[in-house]
């Protein structure tokens, strides 16, 4: 929005006239009804459950409805260790979610493999296969950390433009909505990472428009 329009809006609100844009209204509605998928992988899921209960009460942020089907979910919280045997299922669930969809990688294991990083069976971070919006470190992160991640995600949703080149992935017609599911190979998952998504050590990733 142009600066003079912003000033006009502030000026109007000073005089008791509330104005908004379609984009702001749209993002306001979306960020306050992010429905996560009922999906827990390991001990971080216990913290996620605690976050939704009365003491921490994620319902305050409009996320109390944990949907049991990916078709109805906006957000997948990858809470816990992703084993190589589970990784294809996680990617497939993500693929089945309708756009716009978001990912929170919760805990050391989900972001990097954590203490099991050198194990033969643990995926070293789910961001190898699907685009992650918010990473939370911690082993496990406290419910406050998850709430903070959730607020970060809300802020991110709030800043998404409806038009223009900087608009998010789900508004680009040619950006992918499904990501390739890794296959079980002879020595590990194939491919080991999706280079379209993964920020690898070359430092020059071909990132999906986020």
């Amino acid at each position, binding site marked *: 929005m142009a600066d003079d329009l912003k000033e006009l809006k502030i000026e109007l609100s000073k005089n008791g006239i509330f104005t908004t844009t379609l984009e702001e209204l749209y993002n306001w509605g979306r960020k306050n009804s992010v429905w996560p998928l009922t999906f827990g992988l390991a001990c971080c899921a216990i913290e996620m459950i605690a976050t939704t209960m009365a003491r921490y009460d994620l319902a305050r942020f409009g996320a109390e409805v944990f949907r049991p089907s990916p078709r109805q979910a906006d957000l997948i919280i990858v809470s816990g260790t992703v084993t190589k045997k589970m990784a294809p299922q996680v990617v497939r669930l993500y693929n089945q979610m309708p756009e716009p969809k978001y990912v929170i990688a919760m805990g050391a294991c989900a972001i990097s493999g954590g203490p099991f990083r050198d194990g033969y*069976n643990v995926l070293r971070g789910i961001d190898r296969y699907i685009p992650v919006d918010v990473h939370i470190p911690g082993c496990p992160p406290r419910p406050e950390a998850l709430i903070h991640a959730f607020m970060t995600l809300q802020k991110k949703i709030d800043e998404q433009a409806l038009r223009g080149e900087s608009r998010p992935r789900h508004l680009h017609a040619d950006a992918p909505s499904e990501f390739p599911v890794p296959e079980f190979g002879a020595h590990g998952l194939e491919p080991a990472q999706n280079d379209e998504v993964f920020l690898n050590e070359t430092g020059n990733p071909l990132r999906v428009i986020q």
Partner: protein
Amino acid sequence: MSALPTVEDLKAQIEASLPGAAVTVIPNGSPSAQHSLLLDHEHARAVALFLRDHPDLRLDFCSLVTGVDWLDTETTEKIKVKKMVAGPDGSEIEQEVEETRKMKVPGYLEAIYHLFSMEKKHGPVILRLRTANRTDQTHVPSLTPVWRSCEFQEREAFDLYGIVFDGHPDLRRILMWEGFQDFPMRKDYVPPADDSLAPLPFASLQRASTKEARP
């Protein structure tokens, strides 16, 4: 609670009732002193049945099956060899010379069973089965027909160590997927190279953090 006979007594009992069975006592020098019995392949199942059904032993519960990978080792030993050596005056004289010889001891895979008795409330008796080597002869007889509780744990040992249990009713991989070719708990297992991210150099991280701390 009836007292369990010592491993030496067990060995004697087994060899008395099963002629031909070769049982070796593997001593354990640690304070726990859990000595174990190494069985030969031909008689392993007969010995297992004997331990399970003997009225004084009744080892009816196999609580644990696990695998151990023993790598090939090299031992050096010094031996004295008589050799013809040129003497100071030019003639050859016989002299004893010390030589070090390197011996290659082939490694093996080992399956270990811990047996208890629910009825007599005693245990454990520890059995070991060894494969001939680590590469092509990795077969041991399965004890699942004797103790049903071995089934999944033998599958696990097969999956992670590659010990093939002959006579197992359903020997498939249990933790890794079908089509996986490695045995990840073996000591020489190397994870696929493309799977590791190069670690960030620690020094540069440290410099960055100190820079942040002292602006």
